């Protein structure tokens, strides 16, 4: 069964450093997403990406964040100058059409 793959599973970074989280969405999917989940809290929408551009973003997704689909298969989330409060699980998701989104297993980001 096709699945969304995220790497790394756990990333530890120093405050102020840049991190890039990687995702490989399901191959025939057209919509791509990043979500964030702070420990014990709900899953929060960050950004959606369609047709090679951001289609929607939340107020969380400020200039510190960027997304890219560099080669037609990968979908990355870059966080510049990480802050302690960026520590969370980051989930990538993809969907083919107006149906359910499929989620990856997440990357646990720890900012120290």
């Amino acid at each position, binding site marked *: 069964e096709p699945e*969304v793959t995220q790497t790394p599973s756990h990333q530890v970074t120093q405050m102020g450093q840049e991190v890039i989280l990687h995702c490989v969405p399901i191959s025939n999917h057209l*919509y791509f*997403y990043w*979500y964030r989940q702070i420990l014990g*809290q*709900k*899953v*929060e*929408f960050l950004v*959606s990406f*369609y047709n090679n551009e951001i*289609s*929607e973003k939340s107020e969380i997704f400020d200039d510190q964040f960027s997304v890219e689909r560099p080669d037609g298969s990968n979908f990355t989330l870059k966080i510049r100058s990480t802050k302690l409060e960026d520590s969370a699980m980051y*989930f990538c*998701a993809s*969907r083919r*059409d*107006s*149906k*359910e*989104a*499929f*989620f*990856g*297993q*997440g990357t646990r980001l720890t900012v120290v």
Partner: protein
Amino acid sequence: GESVGLHLPTLSVQEGDNSIINCAYSNSASDYFIWYKQESGKGPQFIIDIRSNMDKRQGQRVTVLLNKTVKHLSLQIAATQPGDSAVYFCAENIRTSYDKVIFGPGTSLSVIP
């Protein structure tokens, strides 16, 4: 604005009993609803969905009910099993944008053997 919320943050049920998890939403423009299950350390996993032109949909051991009048959604799990222990999120899509799925805060279901 958009918001999805849950009535109960935690639920404990005996193995074999039925579970009911509730969710309230406030955006009348929402036309597609999804229930996700999240096990510890994993990503949300699709369980069942329902569109706003329906009021009930059944899957294997799960049923979703939608009451648009009071903007209420519920997930019923029949014969709850230990493997059902997880956090359950309802989520919604609004009609004008399939680009964003909004999650509710989650209900933790614990199954007592």
